[in-house]
């Protein structure tokens, strides 16, 4: 928090002194592409390939030239693999329960995105207030962000992020209450009150986008874990990524991933079906086939994190290509969202993780070595 605050202040001061000219406002509707993503002022297409080829100056993309095959232990619907026949073999996701409340939260994310997530426009205070009403509806996004913990991190036995003081002790594990929720609420309040006229309101929107994407990125892994005792959490694990869309589709985070890395998105779907397959084969009230569970969860998480990395890589390119307040937007979004990869990178390649973290920790965005950050990502996330 301290470093973010310092960086924000520095950035805000620089912008104020420099008197950056605002971009022309773009109506929200016209600012959205068919896929729902706003084009940035750098003129980049939303697709992964375009980002890699046109603006990256790097090796040409995440998967280019890499021989990427599923693991022998991975589940693939209809394939002749080591998995017994199960409910997922038709390639469709079959709900555990008839209704999935998570879908409404992802829909809320999309509504907020329409209101706020545009690097070329400063949302009005009224739009921030409307976004907050959507965010804080009972049982809505807020209720889950504030309780979100990230099982990618370990914490001592008995750690309960809902208890007072615990999130401060384990901020990475208790990512929701320690970090994401304050970022979102601070930004919503700042945007609604326009309390800092020196900061373009899109900066607040960028932080909200980053925090909510972080939330969507870690939630499937958490839900697939708690599905052990609460079977319908498998539905949430599926829906936090896809928004409940039919096979191979997706809104919310899936929309972001599919646009930049269709292969990762496809593999994430296999992972979703793997998790559902496990819970179909292991259908006791409390699951017992934990080795199978871990196989499925790791398959899903590997693909999903690869897709998330592709999104971050794409946003780094957009940041690099952008100017003015749009550049600030991308930087603020990356500073909040980017650390979601830290734990995975640290586990796979600590040296690359250090480079990546160092670039995102820079207080002056002008000094960020985008190529180094992208290279670190590419070295770690080479195959979903």
């Amino acid at each position: 928090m301290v470093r973010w605050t310092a960086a924000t202040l520095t950035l805000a001061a620089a912008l104020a002194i420099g008197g950056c000219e605002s971009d022309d406002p773009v109506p929200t509707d016209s600012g959205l592409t068919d896929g729902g993503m706003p084009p940035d002022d750098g003129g980049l297409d939303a697709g992964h390939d375009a980002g890699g080829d046109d603006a990256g100056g790097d090796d040409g993309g995440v998967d280019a030239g890499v021989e990427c095959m599923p693991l022998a232990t991975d589940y693939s619907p209809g394939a002749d693999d080591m998995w017994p026949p199960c409910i997922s073999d038709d390639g469709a996701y079959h709900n555990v329960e008839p209704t999935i409340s998570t879908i409404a939260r992802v829909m809320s994310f999309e509504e907020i995105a329409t209101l706020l997530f545009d690097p070329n426009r400063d949302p009005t205070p009224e739009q921030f207030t409307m976004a907050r009403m959507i965010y804080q509806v009972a049982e809505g996004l807020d209720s889950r962000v504030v309780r979100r913990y990230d099982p990618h991190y370990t914490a001592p036995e008995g750690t309960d992020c809902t208890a007072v003081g615990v999130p401060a002790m384990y901020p990475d594990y208790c990512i929701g209450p320690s970090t994401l929720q304050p970022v979102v609420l601070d930004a919503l309040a700042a945007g609604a009150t326009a309390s800092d006229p020196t900061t373009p309101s899109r900066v607040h929107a960028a932080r909200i986008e980053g925090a909510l994407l972080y939330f969507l990125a870690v939630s499937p892994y958490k839900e697939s874990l708690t599905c052990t005792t609460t079977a319908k959490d498998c539905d949430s694990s599926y829906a936090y990524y896809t928004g409940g869309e039919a096979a191979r589709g997706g809104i919310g985070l899936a929309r972001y991933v599919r646009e930049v890395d269709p292969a990762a998105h496809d593999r994430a779907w296999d992972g979703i079906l793997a998790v559902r397959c496990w819970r179909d084969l292991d259908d006791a009230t409390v699951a017992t086939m934990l080795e199978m569970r871990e196989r499925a969860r790791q398959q899903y998480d590997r693909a999903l994190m690869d897709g998330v990395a592709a999104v971050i890589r794409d946003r780094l390119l957009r940041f690099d290509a952008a100017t003015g307040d749009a550049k600030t937007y991308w930087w603020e979004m990356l500073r909040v969202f980017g650390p979601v990869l830290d734990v995975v990178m640290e586990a796979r390649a600590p040296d690359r993780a250090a480079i990546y973290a160092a670039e995102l920790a820079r207080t002056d965005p002008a000094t960020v070595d985008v190529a180094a950050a992208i290279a670190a990502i590419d070295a770690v996330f080479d195959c979903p």
Partner: protein
Amino acid sequence: MLACRAARAVAAIAFAQLIFSSLAVDSAHAQYGATARVRGDAADEAESASSSTVTRSQLEERLPRSTPDALRWEAGVYVQQTAHAQASPFVRGMTGQQVVHLFDGVRMNNGLYRLGPNQYFFTVDSQSVQRLEVERGSASVRWGSDALGGAILAYPIEPFLDASAEGIELHPRVFGRFGTADLERGGRLQLEASIGPDTGVLVGAGHRVVDDLESGGVVPHFAELPDDTGGALRRGLVAPWVPRFAEEAEHPDDPDAWRTQLGTGFREGTFDGRIVRRLPGGLRVIGAVYGYRQYDAPRTDQCPPPEAPIVDCLRIDEQFRTLSYVALRGEGGGDVRDVDLILSYQRHHERRVRDRRESSRTEDVWRDDVDTFGIAFRASTRDFDLGERGYWKVRYGMDAYSDQVSSSAFQEFTDVGLVFEQSRGQYLDGSSYISTGLFGEIEARPLDWLTTRGGVRASVVGARAPADPESATRAVNRELGAAVGRAGVAIRATDELELFLNVDQGFRAPNLDDLTSRQQAGPGFQFENPDLRPERTNTFELGAKTALEWIVFEAWAFATMLEDGIVRAVREAEDCPRETPACSASWSQYQLVNADQTSWILGGELWGTAYLPADFAVRATIAYAWGEGPNTGFRETEGTSPFGERVPLSRMPPLNGTVEVRWRHVATGVYAAAGARWALDQTRLAPSDLSDPRIPIGGTPGYGVFDLRVGWRHRDVARVSLLFENVFDAAYRVHGSSVNGPGRGLVLAASLGF
């Protein structure tokens, strides 16, 4: 406001009369276990059906925490608690809207009574209650809509009419009470006055403060859970998320230290005034007001909600109920006997707050008020001859109640000071609900050993609610009619044994809660269905009563068919009403529907008291109810949902019972008693129970709880009662409750009067 003014007016009159009073002594006391009935209604009903009574003496010895809590020792009654400041009696497996509550003959059920357990009977001050009666089984002929599972009747303390009194006599009394499990401290001041031989007045006021309740510990999940589920799952595995415990913060690794339940403390105040004037010719006129004020009462399962920050809390900031009425009772002469004519006004005010200030910088507020005007008339004819030794008579009556509802909801962003009023509250502002009925019952005893009974009721219910286009809420304009009947026969097989066979019909017209409400219920978000039809029951009952010199014993078996049962049907997010995002965001969505198949509840009750030598008495009860109904939306074929076409009914009590042994030394007034309550595991769960955080994974474990009581009474002057509750410190939970039962502790109560 009107209720407040009415209450103040009645209280002012009562206090004004007391100024002219002087001292006297009320010596009327019911004996332990005795049934002290005053009016004919309940007495006649008790003779022909499964019913039982809790007397004032029993209340003073058992020291219940609330009026519903006083019913724990009655067979066939199972008291569920969603919060420490709430309790909902299940009667024969039904509760809430499906059981009618009456206070001194005035119907408490109103158009906002919720489906499932509700807290409304908790608003009857147990300190002002003289006795409670439970009528099991459908009783709609007598009591109208809602009496499907049974009726619970509370009767208040009456001022003593001293025929020998001259001038004004005053009888002040002070009550005090302290409990260790929740640091309950409370008391009541009461003043009784006789104004000449024909007028009696009783006024009282009480206050109580209750802290968080200490339980016997964690009630674990019933299902066996694996150890290796990841550290993050540990809290939810070690103990159900409901309730949370204060000790978790300091001892997160040691659930054995978890005892004090969060979200259980509250405050309450009560007041009451009653004046009775004896009229020439055997009638009495009664004016009365009863007020209940509850503050800061958290809903335990939402304070905090499961998995939410521990600082989040849904609490009832204010729950006020004020009942005032004027009644004419007694013998009217001719064929208007046993008259009970009541004009009543009741106001229920509820203000709920979902406080997420600390975690989310927001707060939601709901306010719901209902004003009810009522009139009820009941009377009977004289006995007409039937043959040489027989008789027949008719009981008849009517009742009408009118509810006016106001409802609103607000959301505040506390960090920026913005407040928004929602387009609608939980209910629709300006709704109204009218319930009317006429009934007649006939009782005939053609032979010494044979009594037959029958009755009919015709009812009309009207529900009105305006539309709210912003929230896509349809207007409601419904008239619903219902006719029900009953028939029964009692055969006195021997002087000691009487057998009963009864067939009773019950009905419940959908109320405003069913037709218009949108709310977060225990299992998920529930939204309205303005097209519901009444639900109906047919109850078949077989009973036997034995009364020997040393033992009284009753046994009842029943079968209840519920037709068109109003149940929660699973809905999908896209079915949610427009502009109600809390619905689609909820874990589960439900809509009330009339079930298309019959639901069944089968069960029985046994209870008896044995009077042993040396002033010992043993009382025992046992009850069971088994319920099954149609599956209203869950699928069997997919996933892990092991449901079929028919499923268990929600929150049905397990096999349960009580045993009490009591010794009383008549000469000195000293008594001692031991009591045990027990219940077996309940693992027959409805689909909605599986997503209900109040129910541990796999079901609710059974329990046994042992109490000791000692006390002393000196005439009607002084009384001291001590309860050593849960002697073995059992960790237990009544199935469906959010609150674990009190741990080992003491409750001390004393009173002194003149």
